[in-house]
């Protein structure tokens, strides 16, 4: 699983830091490093920027996997520098931000926007794969998620806007349902598209309220 992130506009970061004078920076060695949003070089870049607006950076670290429980140990190891800061600026996905928040009693701010769960389709190009809807339909859609890859999350596509394999929203966006159609055709399963996919139960998704699984 890869969480795709982008850096927030610096003005927004600046506004979040507010009056804080001393900042500690945390990055992540996994997804955010892969996305070039929270690895060592991005951290150093952020350090410069934060210093340019007159703040002091008390220290920084790239946690191997910020969403992991080991984050706690990493934070303890750097307790002194963290203690010296007024707030923590996290260059990891929102999961990493929330993990750090869990273990620290100081304001923790995100430096990144968490975009989606995706994969690197080609070098530097990330595409979305799943919105975690809670009732997966991939068995009927040739392993291609219509909820995230179709602009309208249609379950009975392709819609009338599908032309030359592209989605109506942009010539750069593949029509998910054309991809599904082609794959099903190749596997001799086009009959699957004759069936009406019933109305979805969204209660398993975030629409049903905060989700929790207890083993």
């Amino acid at each position, binding site marked *: 699983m890869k969480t795709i992130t982008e850096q927030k506009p610096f003005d927004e970061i600046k506004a979040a830091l507010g009056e804080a004078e001393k900042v500690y920076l945390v990055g992540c060695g996994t997804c955010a490093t892969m996305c070039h949003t929270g690895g060592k070089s991005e951290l150093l870049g952020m350090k410069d920027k934060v210093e340019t607006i007159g703040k002091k950076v008390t220290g920084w670290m790239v946690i191997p996997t910020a969403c992991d429980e080991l984050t706690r140990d990493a934070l303890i190891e750097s307790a002194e520098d963290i203690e010296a800061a007024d707030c923590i600026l996290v260059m990891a996905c929102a999961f990493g931000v929330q993990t750090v928040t869990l273990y620290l009693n100081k304001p923790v701010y995100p430096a990144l926007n968490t975009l989606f769960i995706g994969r690197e389709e080609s070098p530097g190009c990330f595409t979305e794969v799943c919105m975690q809807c809670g009732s997966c339909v991939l068995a009927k859609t040739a392993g291609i998620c219509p909820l995230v890859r179709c*602009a*309208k*999350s*249609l*379950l*009975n*596509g*392709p*819609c*009338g*806007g*599908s*032309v*030359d*394999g592209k989605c*109506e*929203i*942009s010539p750069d966006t593949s*029509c998910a349902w*054309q991809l599904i*159609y082609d794959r099903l055709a190749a596997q001799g399963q086009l009959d699957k*598209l*004759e069936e*009406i*996919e*019933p*109305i*979805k139960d*969204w209660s398993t998704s975030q629409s049903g309220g905060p989700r929790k699984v207890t083993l």
Partner: protein
Amino acid sequence: MKAGTNLEKILESGRFAVTAEAGPPKGASAAVIQRKGELLRHCCDAVNVTDNQTAIVRMSSLAGCVLLKQLGVEPVMQMVCRDKNRIAIQSDVLGAVALGIGNILCLSGDHQKFGNHPTAKNVFDIDSIQLIQTLKNMRDEKKFLCGEDISGEVPLFIGAAANPYADPFEFRVVRLAKKVKAGVDFIQTQAVYDVAKFARWMEMVTERGLDKEVHILAGLIPIRSVGMARYMRDYVSGVSVPDEILTRMEQAKDAKEEGARIILEIIEQVKEIPGVHGVHIMAVGWEDVIPQVVEQAGLLPRPVL
């Protein structure tokens, strides 16, 4: 009769139907809709009121339909899945029926990316095929989607769109078949310019016997200028404008006259295609042309049933 609307009566009696479209204003003026209603009342059987078409905020389709209804013009209420979940949709259907609206057209809706509120959150709780199912379920089973009973009748004549020009072409008939299976009563197609391709699609439709189960109205958009023809070709997804039409528009002395002539010719041609039960004219701001075209096509006076 499912809803007993004028459109249903015309189609069920085997007559050739004519519908048109009236886009509501970007404002609260009833007069805009009333003007279009007055203009169209004698030359078509029902008038569609679009639902925030191209994701640009306008007066609601429901309100527009009521304004037409007050004039004695029969409305077709368009409904898109983009802006409402199943709770709002079913509630609006009940309200529409209570206000005397019997024709509802089910659409996915254009993506908000190109509208005037691209930062909006879309809904797409259900899709257009599921919307047809929802309406049929309300009408025939008198039940909400959750299974609870609806008190009283929900008479509806259910419409949907079809685009013979979208891809994959072979799937377009399958998609229509799904809409038929879902319970659609009439179809208004995307604008037809390439009649040959439309005829090929209709052939596949009749081969599957779908023309016996649903009334198909060929969609038409009159072109009033060369610029519009180019725009339609280049920017309106799912519309195909053949070069021949473009050339005719370019060479025409009077573009509007030529545009009207082209639409007239297309009407003449689609009328002859087996399985076509009517035309749907979307004049997008050029409603004035409709009475003339319908008259010249020999489709006046409209039958009173």
